[in-house]
């Protein structure tokens, strides 16, 4: 197996496990933190985006319409979040079901709060 420049032992042997780890970099199963932060950033951006609609253009975007868009988008983002965490951890011993359940639960509370109390 030909390894990239800088890896291996100069043609005398294959890749060592240290080489493999260097080529991998950060493993996907250790990316749950950044995936969770990205999910919350996306959710906040979505809330801000729909709010821009019904606060800035209330005559074109009724609040109910903005909330409907926000709810559907939160569902889309949540499905993507679950897929990302599941794919990154499959085949490893790591389990982040608590983080996923906590995030989705908090997101449900947040979406309900915005839909019921904001913009009416």
């Amino acid at each position: 197996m030909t390894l990239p420049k800088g890896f291996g032992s100069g043609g005398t042997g294959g890749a060592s496990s240290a080489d493999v780890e260097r080529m991998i970099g950060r493993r996907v199963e250790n990316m749950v933190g950044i995936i969770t932060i990205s999910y919350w950033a996306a959710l906040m951006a979505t809330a801000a985006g729909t709010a821009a609609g019904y606060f800035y253009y209330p005559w074109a975007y009724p609040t109910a319409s903005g909330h409907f868009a926000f709810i559907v988008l939160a569902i889309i983002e949540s499905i993507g979040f679950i897929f990302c965490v599941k794919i990154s951890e499959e085949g490893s011993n790591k389990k982040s079901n608590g983080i996923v359940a906590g995030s989705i639960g908090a997101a449900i509370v947040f979406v309900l709060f915005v839909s019921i109390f904001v913009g009416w």
Partner: protein
Amino acid sequence: MAQMPALIPKEVEIQRLKKIFLMVIALGSIAASVEVDNFVDGSLHQTSIRDSAFTPAHWWLYSHFIALPLGWGAIAIYDRKVPILRGPNNSMNTGLKITILGYLATMFTIGINEMWHFWFVEEIFSVPNHWMFNMGVVVAFMGALAYVVRVYARLVELGAETPGENPYIAEMYKMALEGKLYSRSIP
């Protein structure tokens, strides 16, 4: 399909393919969110026909036409680390090429669209300036599907993805990997 000889260690390839998969899911979520914007944009244009390029529905629509090509461009850069995904003559993967071409068409159409609306302040779905938005997105989706199926098939090949538990589905996976699926199902 015989398993291709590995040019990089299997563990490295699996990790890289999964990173590509995560990026594709993020871009897929953006693409799905713009489906919602179709309705938001439609509600705007039923109310105000067209007031300007800078309304929330248009920020959303136009920024996705920038974000998705950039995202797929990032995948194209990262994709070079996985030899199995190379296209003909060591070029970019064909699915990726088609995806990026499709989204480039939509980026180009933003300019065309603004020029049209400078003179014609209407918002009829079927006018010519909108054609290439729709065709570009469809072309991009077809390329993305081809690419993501290739990535998934390679993950199955490497044993990183478990075929279905249903024995009939598992048998289909096995035959597909051996290149016998079509010869069995299409006599």
